[in-house]
């Protein structure tokens, strides 16, 4: 069991958007019957077959860390939450489709999570500012999930979907819109399930298979820098 490598994915979002239900649905393929407020962090595990169906198939554990709380919490809660943000390989951002503020808060959530990440570039972003460049060249893959899709009346669905399309562009991420009380959305073969699988595969790839190549590009960049500084000296 411990022989399989680990991949850590954070599930972030405002209080009450449905992260715990979502995680339960992804990992157990069952609907969560008794949602209550998450204190601290709850973890669940999904067994994922990387590159399913091909001869290179390998099984991985994906840990989904579901962290409770809101962006406006006291700083003591924030610094305690920061403990969970170490060595993250992927982030799932969850927002409530019936609540606009929750999608706006996603920017702050991602800032909070990524600034705690030990990024080699060391970008200093002031609190609350949103820097698009940081997302484009980001090493951590993001997935955007909108919940409570069933609670939106039919006529409003169009504008909601365009809004979320903008969001996913901002984050340079895929998006899925669903309803956590309905297991049908992640049934095998649906486009949602495919997107989810693809996201997990991307996370695994980033973690285990492209590390060598990115290290090499880092090297060449540094070489170029040194050359430039020599030149200006």
């Amino acid at each position, binding site marked *: *069991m*411990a022989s*399989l490598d*680990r991949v850590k994915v954070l599930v972030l979002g*405002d*209080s*009450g958007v449905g992260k715990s239900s979502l995680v339960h649905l992804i*990992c157990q393929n069952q609907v969560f019957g008794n949602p209550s407020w998450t*204190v*601290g*962090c*709850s*973890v*669940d*595990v*999904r*067994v994922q077959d990387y590159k399913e169906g091909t001869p290179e198939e390998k099984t991985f*554990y994906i*840990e989904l*860390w579901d962290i409770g709380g*809101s*962006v*406006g*919490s*006291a*700083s*003591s*809660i924030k*610094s*305690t939450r920061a*403990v*969970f943000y170490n060595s993250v390989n992927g982030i799932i951002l969850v927002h*409530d489709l*019936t*609540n*606009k*503020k929750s999608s706006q*808060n996603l920017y702050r959530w991602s800032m909070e999570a990524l600034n705690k990440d030990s990024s080699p570039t060391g970008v200093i972003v002031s609190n609350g500012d949103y820097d698009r460049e940081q997302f484009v060249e980001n090493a951590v893959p993001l997935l955007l999930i909108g919940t409570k899709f069933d609670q939106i009346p039919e006529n409003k669905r169009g504008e909601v979907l365009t809004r979320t399309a903008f969001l996913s562009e901002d984050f340079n991420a895929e998006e899925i819109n669903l309803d956590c009380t309905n297991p049908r959305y992640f049934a095998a073969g649906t486009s949602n399930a495919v997107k989810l699988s693809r996201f997990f595969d991307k996370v695994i790839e980033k973690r285990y298979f492209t590390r060598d190549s990115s290290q090499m590009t880092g090297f060449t960049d540094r070489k170029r820098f040194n050359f430039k500084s020599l030149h200006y000296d």
Partner: protein
Amino acid sequence: FGWLFFMRQLFKDYEVRQYVVQVVFSVTFAFSCTMFELIIFEILGALSSTSRYFHWKLNLYVILLVLIFVVPFYIAYFVVSNIRLLQRQKLLFACMVWFTFMYFFWKLGDPFPILSPKHGILSIEQLISRVGVIGVTLMALLSGFGAVNCPYTYMSYFLRNVTDSDILALERRLLQTMDMIVSKKKRIAMTRRQMYQRGEDQNKQTGFWGMIKSVTSTQTGSENLSLIQQEVDALEELSRQLFLETVDLQATKERIEYSKTFQGKYFNFLGYFFSIYCVWKIFMVKFWSQHISFILVGIIIVTSIRGLLITLTKFFYAISSSKSSNVIVLVLAQIMGMYFVSSVLLMRMSMPLEYRSIVTEVLGELQFNFYHRWFDVIFLVSALSSILFLYLAHKQAPEKHMAL
């Protein structure tokens, strides 16, 4: 004015769908503030006497109307619409709840020496008296608690010594617990997956021996599973407790740092000052100078209002969710309205004699002495109980650390 405060402070993170709720809340707030302005005008003698009187009456009518009729109705409506069982007859049920509320409200007046035989049933005095009773109780409770909480929070004497290594140690324990939870869950997932696969194979297996083998293996598999699941549940509970403790320690550490800064020292001094005053208020009955007492009461009221708003905001963050946000706003509006009305009544207690005339005239004949006594009693009770409560909490926390 009230609108701005509302929009900016309380609802940074959530949407309130119902427009009406916002309007109700801001109206309540606006009128409460105008009441206070009127009192201040009283003291200063700014406007002419008759116009003041008129404004008083108007203000009182509106506030009472809102407090007693509108707000409870909406609260009932929203509470009922949150309970999913009774979706159909929302309106009917809300009316029923509202009538129950009015009934209890009426009954509340009976044990107290408030009714005076001269006035009819639906007069202003009756309504004010009832609102006053509830409001006074609430206010005494809150101020008793605040009087004790205030020195406790601000005085550095009570702050326990927290070092960085404590916090780091706790965080490490938290992460270790999370890792244990993760590894156990991995085992569960793997076992379940194997069972599932074996279940598929099982369908292919034929024969008597195959069936027996499959039965026994799944049996042990599921037993193992439930055992591990119990362990996981226990570990998750532990991780939650550790998380809360870490948050607590972080908060204490921040408070220590804050107390070292200049602002912290200033508040510290205020804390000492207020604690002395509150202790004095608990044990003494008569003030020795009317003017000083009035100023002090003014300060206390301002700080208590500020404290109330801050506490309510914190409380609001702690329990808010998108489902119940409407109810919470209405409850806040109700509490605030009652608080303000009763504080007006009580301020009369500490105002010098010449200003009391207009207030008495407007509010009619109410037994003010009764209110004073009632307030003191409740204040004493709540202060003592909160002292007890805080003492227990304070004692319990160092013990928890020892046990770790």
